[in-house]
């Protein structure tokens, strides 16, 4: 009989009844409000049939931010270079389609994920032995290196002008119509759902827990025998693969790819989106993407400079007062509400 079972017999204590144990055992269960984003996404499809292009862009941004959350929010890897994987995925899909090698979308996405994962693994393997400013610098350099490489190889990548191509219909039946983006939207939503299910499972698994441990106290993780570097590399590779899928989706829904997918601007934007929503909280990506893109859509068109100014001020305020983003603020308010209710 195990020690634990023997102890239970002796003490007669049923640990499973203890609130702390119950909380841990139940943590992964799906709560009712987790369905809201998905219901909202489906409602959007019917409510805004002429804005499905924007909707697709929004869903892709959610996926991209989600991929960053895995590395940054859960493992604590601070990177300004996630566009490297987005761009790799986009170019993989783009070039496969442009050169007529492969135009079917779903396997195209898998190729994008694979290519990005390779880059992620290779760069993670060498970069993740550094930390702090050095690591940040190196992530910037990797992205810049890929960007310049794509520029240099403009004969095959199209350089600044980029590549235009066509993608075959999904499952052979649902065509990507550039004027009416319903296929794009539902396809993207489906991919996002699958990827999100993957990330959610990962986050609640023991592996995901150990990532949180690495983020919280890396020295302690070493001291409990955790193979920290291996975990970080795996996490970074998975994060890269997801970012690659996001990039691939972007190429597929726009039938276009260019150097902008590898820019510092794109890395910085996805970081802002995630921070705005709240990192390390799974749904921060959703909230951040919605808030950022909606604001940008309405403000940046009309007053681009004011938008930049406002964004800058917002970032300063977030860094000073609301480092956990909108979800963090929400949590804080909820805790206060609960405390007041308990006191009453």
């Amino acid at each position, binding site marked *: 009989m195990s*020690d634990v079972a023997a102890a239970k017999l002796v003490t007669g204590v049923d*640990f499973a009844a203890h609130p702390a144990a119950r909380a*841990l055992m139940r943590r992964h269960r799906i709560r009712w409000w987790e369905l809201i984003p998905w219901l909202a996404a489906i409602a959007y499809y019917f409510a805004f049939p002429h804005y499905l292009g924007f909707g697709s862009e929004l869903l892709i941004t959610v996926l991209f931010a989600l991929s960053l959350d895995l590395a940054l929010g859960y493992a604590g890897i601070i990177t300004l270079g996630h566009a490297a994987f987005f761009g790799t995925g986009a170019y993989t899909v783009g070039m496969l389609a442009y050169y007529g090698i492969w135009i079917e979308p779903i396997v195209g996405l898998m190729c994008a994920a694979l290519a990005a994962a390779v880059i992620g693994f290779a760069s993670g393997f060498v970069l993740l032995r550094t930390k702090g400013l050095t690591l940040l610098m190196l992530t910037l350099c990797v992205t810049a290196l890929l960007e310049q490489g794509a520029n240099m190889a403009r004969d095959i990548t199209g350089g600044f002008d980029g590549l235009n191509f066509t993608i075959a219909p999904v499952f052979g039946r649902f065509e990507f119509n550039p004027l009416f983006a319903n296929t794009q939207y539902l396809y993207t939503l489906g991919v996002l759902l699958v990827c999100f299910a993957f990330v959610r499972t990962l986050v609640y698994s*023991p592996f*995901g*827990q150990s990532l949180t441990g690495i983020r*919280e106290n890396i020295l302690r993780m070493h001291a409990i*025998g955790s193979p920290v570097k291996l975990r970080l590399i795996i996490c970074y590779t998975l994060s890269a693969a997801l970012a690659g899928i996001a990039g691939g989706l972007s190429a597929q829904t726009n039938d276009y790819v260019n150097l902008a997918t590898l820019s510092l601007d794109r890395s910085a934007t996805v970081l802002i989106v995630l921070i705005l929503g709240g990192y390390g909280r799974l749904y921060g990506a959703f909230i951040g993407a919605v808030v950022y893109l909606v604001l940008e859509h309405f403000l940046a068109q009309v007053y681009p400079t004011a938008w930049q100014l406002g964004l800058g001020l917002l970032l300063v305020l977030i860094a000073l007062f609301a480092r956990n983003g909108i979800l963090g603020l929400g949590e804080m308010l909820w805790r206060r509400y609960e405390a007041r209710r308990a006191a009453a």
Partner: protein
Amino acid sequence: MSETRLETQALSRQFGALRAVQQIDFKLDAGARHALIGPNGAGKTTFINLLTGVLPPSEGRVLLGGRDITATTQAERVKLGIARTFQINRLFRGLSVLENVCMAVTERLGAAGSMIYPAGRRSDVIDEAMELLQTLKLADVARHRVSELPYGRQRLVELAITIGLKPEVLLLDEPAAGVPSAESHIILDAVERLPAHIAVLIIEHDMDVVFRFAKRVTVMVSGAIFAEGTPREIEANSQVREVYLGQSGHA
């Protein structure tokens, strides 16, 4: 005759011109209750860092159960059965007490690499962690965040994590350090109740604790072993008194 669990041979560590640890030959037997004492800066923590693989030695070897582990990393040594607590807590402050201990138990069981099934399904991990918390009288705060606890109980969590690793050799770096005297007895009670087969080395300054707990004492001065023996022998040793205990000895 007890078997030697941990041994060092001519273990040394230099930092430039500073000889932090010099030619230490040290043995720790199974079931040992061994105290390491010495003035500040004597090299005690450096010695622990060498034993656990946080620092590589400049010279010498570390052996665990007869096997040379000098080239292994810190994480590998934990897997081999050496665990230590830190002088300043290294805890997951944002996580609950239960989560802290579960992290260690999961790692020990080799389950931490699993990516598919939820951590919550591992009821064996949770049960074991809860039982450990129960033993250390931490069960009532299992759900609390570590950062919310008073320092003494945080120190106890540090100990809980380490015990959760089920080590064969346990190195405690001043376990009661920084704990208000009103709370320190809970730490010391826990240390006393450690399983008998574990080899325990404790760095301590408080001579009361040393006398209460240790069967053997090693005195370290300026990186070298100055004296070794039972607590009584050490206390009676006039040279040790001079160097460390000062004129007022222990009654």
